[in-house]
């Protein structure tokens, strides 16, 4: 019973729920501010994403006549809930360890697919042709990046499992504990292909330039989000903020969980790592590149990240 309550608290308060939401939105604010400064603009206030969410709460929700009302209104909720649960699955070194019953890499992989699927369903339920285009692009992109992700996860699991004298372990706690004891995978040459592949994967998964093809506002008018307005649109913004926290935190847990054993220091180190990942991997990339076409992105993913991921799996199995 008490561990059910612990899981519930983890989902609703920390590291999921309130904390992940506030942190995700704050990261977005910093991202926009830094982006503006790099373009020598003043930029929005740091709390701008919070203002946006509150503003959306005041607006009217419109449902297009062509849409399937139930699906249209409730799919974003599924996405938000999946991300809340996912946030409770990712360990933060010496601060938070998920309950062994839920802290599983495979479960997390499935949960991470849900926001993409939610966008696809939302796009097609809206009955708008742009939503349909967004649907097909999202699907193509998912096919392109899910493969490498699964291979990366397998490489990490096997490396940990073999290191611990077994075959493969998908427990996130074990993965973190193993790296704490034997050094992070980031400094392990065998894992470098997987690290590189992950660096390609997460901009695509988070839908930022150059891989924001399904939601390109200049060509498909934000695709699946086109018909959404008001509070329901806010749910999508919340979902993507949560997803950002989950994916970046997962990257840290998989490859570089090293942190001091002290709770406060561990948390601080985690914050710094998140900030670096975000500024280098999201803000800088987003500003220095243009959007790819869907066919270019697809071919790109089948060429490099998939190759790297296969290579990393092969190396891990052989070594």
């Amino acid at each position: 019973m008490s561990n059910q309550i612990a899981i519930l608290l983890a989902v609703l308060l920390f590291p999921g729920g309130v904390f992940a939401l506030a942190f995700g939105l704050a990261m977005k604010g910093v991202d926009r501010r830094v982006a503006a400064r790099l373009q020598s603009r003043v930029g929005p206030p740091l709390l701008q994403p919070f203002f946006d969410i509150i503003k959306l709460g005041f607006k009217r929700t419109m449902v297009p006549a062509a849409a399937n009302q139930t699906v249209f209104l409730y799919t974003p909720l599924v996405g938000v809930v999946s991300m809340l649960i996912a946030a409770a699955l990712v360990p933060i070194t010496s601060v938070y360890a998920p309950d062994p019953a839920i802290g599983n890499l495979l479960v997390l992989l499935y949960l991470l697919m849900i926001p993409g699927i939610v966008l696809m369903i939302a796009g097609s339920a809206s009955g708008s042709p742009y939503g349909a285009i967004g649907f097909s692009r999202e699907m193509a992109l998912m096919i392109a990046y899910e493969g490498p992700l699964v291979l990366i996860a397998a490489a990490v699991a096997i490396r940990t499992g073999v290191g611990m004298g077994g075959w493969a372990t998908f427990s996130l706690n074990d993965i973190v504990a193993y790296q704490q004891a034997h050094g992070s995978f980031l400094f392990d040459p065998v894992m470098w292909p997987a690290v590189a592949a992950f660096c390609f994967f997460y901009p695509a998964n988070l839908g930022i330039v150059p891989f924001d093809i399904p939601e390109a506002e200049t060509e498909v008018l934000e695709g699946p989000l086109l018909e959404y307005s008001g509070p329901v649109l806010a749910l999508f913004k919340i979902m993507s903020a949560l997803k950002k926290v989950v994916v970046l935190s997962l990257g840290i847990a998989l490859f570089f969980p090293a942190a001091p054993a002290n709770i406060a220091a561990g948390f601080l180190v985690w914050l710094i790592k998140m900030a670096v990942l975000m500024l280098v991997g999201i803000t800088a990339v987003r500003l220095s590149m243009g959007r790819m076409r869907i066919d270019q992105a697809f071919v790109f993913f089948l060429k490099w990240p998939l190759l790297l991921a296969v290579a990393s799996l092969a190396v891990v199995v052989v070594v």
Partner: protein
Amino acid sequence: MGLIPDFKQIATRSPWIYRINAGSCNGCDVEMATTALIPRYDIERLGCQYCGSPKHADIVLISGPLTVRVKDAVLRMYEEIPDPKVTVAVGVCPISGGIFRESYAVLAPIDQYIPIDVNVPGCPPRPQAIIAGVAKAIAIWRERL
């Protein structure tokens, strides 16, 4: 502001902007799209953001004299913008038709069809004027929330 923050006040710090081209010569659009967003004028500091979909918009910038051809499309687009919304007419075209005023193909003034809250005259108006117009629109929007 007491213990509970004034959410309406906070909400007005996030006006999202949508542009409708009602048959403009593109002069005003260039001013709105590029000039108002380049570093020197940056309206993102007011919390503004250009959005791709009319359903996300709070403040509508309309340019052009409303030609007969686009009238239905513009009215439909205007309907798609969720309340509460504020309309800003950019350029002299929506006010009187501007240089197109004697044409048989224009329906200006635009406020016969759409309620206009703020006029920003000029052909095209200076970026500073557009920003002032947007700021005024935010003040009106605050009352409507």
